């Protein structure tokens, strides 16, 4: 119990929760970072450049 007037204590995550969160974040980065680092498909860039040149 917190003392009267003192701010309520925030529930602290169990160490196993923190370990899981760390592992999950690493896994998500492993899955999704790759696609953001890949070169943009030429077809897509061409589509944008064609529109730019038509303006």
């Amino acid at each position: 119990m917190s003392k009267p007037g003192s701010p309520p204590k925030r529930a602290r995550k169990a160490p196993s929760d923190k370990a899981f969160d760390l592992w999950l974040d690493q896994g998500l980065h492993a899955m999704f970072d790759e696609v953001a680092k890949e070169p943009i498909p030429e077809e897509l860039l061409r589509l944008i450049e064609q529109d730019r040149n038509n303006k």
Partner: protein
Amino acid sequence: MPLPQDDQATAHMVASEPEVSFHDLLVAALPALRQQALALTRNRADADDLVQTSVSSALAAQTSFQPGTNFGAWMARILRNRFLSNMRRRREIVDIEDAPASLLARSGGQEEGLAIQQLRHLIGKLPADHRLVLIMISVQGMSYEEASEQLDVPVGTLKCRVSRARAMLRRWLLGDDEAPKPRVAAPKPRARASVPSHALSALPAAPVMAKLGRDKAGAQLERR
């Protein structure tokens, strides 16, 4: 540290360099859009198609974009609307949420660990809106306020979705999410790892978790 955000970069470009063209903003936003499309579709080919159709829509509607406003948010809304429209069309043929995730997900090949394969499979089982915000927050490093602006969804709702997504993944992987923790402290085992060994052994990523437990949770948190 999360990766720098392309949409943050583009938002900065809007604020400080008004001469940046619509097309430059669009090109700069593509990496983040591709991540979001993959989060929604779970499939590389579908993600590429979704980005392509969204870019076409954006080019067709470029006069409706107001310079100086958040380009990332504008594009994210187009992407999401295209996705929902595609989903409605596909449901007439097959409900993709019912399709096995293993068929929809892209395999990373032999080099991809068993744990990541399992995670990829389970990520596919999350609702699409949960998956998207989880990626925006955990991978793209957005704040909840930024994600809220992009998705036009209240911050509280997004926090709830991320929390629920993490809890679901944890429950599917470890099976102990809802288990009440004993109030009476059991005698401490000799091992110093903070992660319970039964939880680690139940996880396909046992070696990874065990290492995390030793290296990070164990080493840092035990000191408290």
